[in-house]
């Protein structure tokens, strides 16, 4: 079985930051592998180690700088990577779900995987919609918010657990080929070993333009536009205790004693 994993590089924000137009100013931003995709990569690599997956391929929509993050996924055990980017993406500050699904669809058609794993969401723009949208557009089955996957795929079926609200899990059987959006906690993502990191340097990382995947520039023109970004106004006025740790701890202790904590 061939497993395709979507891997996104997400922006991380420093504690203190400034907003510049509809973006956070670049000097306050870092980059990391999307937390949810880390679990998706791990699940795929475990399928490979169990001799169920023959090949694990990652796909990323992202600029060349994202390659350091893609190499992290390769270092954890993915076999090769595809990265799609194009000049047409420059200046697009919000790539909508349709555009992402369309680009991924083009890659799926070329790769023909049996199983696609995506993260439930990305940590920066948190659309939570790309995986299921992709499934519909490639006519795959799907399940969203999966926190357990049986590894035997009896009769071409993936037995999964979906994590609903309030500590309830749904047991579902999904026919393959399928897209599963992976929730954190499904496994314990590994750290890349030194050997893995060295090997990752030699693994294939193929950069493709929109043209290479058979799409034209128009795909990035969604009907969505980010028009403002601001820090949310604090809804409640928390009383902030200032001072040394001893002083603030003292204030909190006093509050707790008022509330009857005597221990």
């Amino acid at each position, binding site marked *: 079985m061939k497993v395709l994993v979507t891997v996104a590089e997400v922006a991380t*924000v420093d*504690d*203190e930051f400034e*907003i510049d137009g509809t973006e*956070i100013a670049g000097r306050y931003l870092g980059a990391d592998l999307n937390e949810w995709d880390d679990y998706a990569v791990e699940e795929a690599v475990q399928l490979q180690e169990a001799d169920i997956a023959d090949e694990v391929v990652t796909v990323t929509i992202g600029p060349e700088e994202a390659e350091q993050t893609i190499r992290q996924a390769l270092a954890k055990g993915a076999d090769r990577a595809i990265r799609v980017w194009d000049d047409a993406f420059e200046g697009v500050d919000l790539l909508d*779900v*349709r555009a992402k*699904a369309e680009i991924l669809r083009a890659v799926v058609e070329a790769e023909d995987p049996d199983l696609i794993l995506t993260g*439930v969401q990305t*940590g920066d723009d*948190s*659309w*939570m*919609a790309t995986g*299921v*949208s992709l*499934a*519909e557009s490639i006519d795959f089955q*799907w399940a*969203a918010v999966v926190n357990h996957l049986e590894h035997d795929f009896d009769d071409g079926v993936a*037995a999964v657990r*979906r*994590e*609903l*609200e*309030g*500590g*309830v*899990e*749904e*047991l*579902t*059987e999904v*026919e393959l080929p399928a897209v599963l959006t992976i929730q954190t*906690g499904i496994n*314990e993502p590994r750290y890349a070993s030194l050997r893995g990191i060295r090997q990752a340097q030699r693994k294939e990382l193929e950069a493709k333009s929109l043209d290479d995947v058979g799409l034209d520039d128009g795909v990035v023109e969604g009907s*969505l*536009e*980010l028009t*403002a*970004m601001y*820090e*949310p106004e*604090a*809804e409640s006025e*928390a*009383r*902030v*205790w200032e001072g040394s*740790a*001893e002083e603030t*701890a*003292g*204030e*909190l*202790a006093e*509050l*707790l004693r008022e509330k009857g*904590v005597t*221990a």
Partner: protein
Amino acid sequence: MTDVLAIADHRDGELRDVSFELATAGRALADETGGDVHLAVISGPVDDFADGLALDGVDVVHTVEYGDEFNHDVYVQAISQLYETIEPQYVLVPNSVNGLDYAPAVAARLDLPIVTDVVDLDVDGETLIATREMYGGKVETTTELDAGTALATIREGEWPAAEGAGESSIDAFDAEIDEAAIGSTVTGFEEVAGGDVDISEADLLVSIGRGIEEEENLDLIRDLADALDATLSSSRPIVDAGWLPANRQVGQSGKVVTPEVYIAIGISGAVQHVAGMKGADTIVAINTDPNAPIMDIADYAIHDDLFDVVPALIEQFS
């Protein structure tokens, strides 16, 4: 093309609260477009549900009778057919786990743009203006959709629940479900997070998040819980890492807690966490980041390193 179609959420024979919030959000939107509010409920005891959904401000309740439980293939087919029949301008879906399991597919099938996890909505002519958060709640954004029609998933708890019986008409919608196109089957449900301690019963919770960094540092928090005679709970990453059992997780997918005092230590206050603890009487946040979203709901805050504050607090009680 001015109507709003909203889809109710239910589980285990009960409507979920967000269904009533959708009625409010739908009404507010329809007041701007000048259309009607259609609320649809699919699968389960739909006739009973319809009575509960005939709310003030809802023009029509559509019932789609099909099976007992949620199945996304049934939802996608039923909603697509409702859409073709009603031809609404906007479709509203809860940003719940099930909503996220069908809304993107409905949007893809109907070729509608989708905007998710919306906390506020407005309309300006043909433009839908959606407010949503980014970076785990650190910033808020406005996104404009210039498409005429769109699908939006709304965050639970952001609109007040509609109440009061309305004059809604009830329409049994005859969806044609193609069984051959159903590719997944729900085989059961399981409650997780049982066990020795019930954090939802506790009066004083000491709750820890990713700020703790390493498993061995948890001992410090255990010492604090001992010193205060408090119950220990946590945000999700601590449970994901296997450092605490699932019954200690506070939040949307964990437990809802209502203690007198909730001390959130090294927890950012992501919406899914806040969903579980916002009902606490008094919330105290200890966090190095003064802009962490938890500060918005905290009553008291310490903007400092937990590794300094927690030992000092333990000292106070020993």
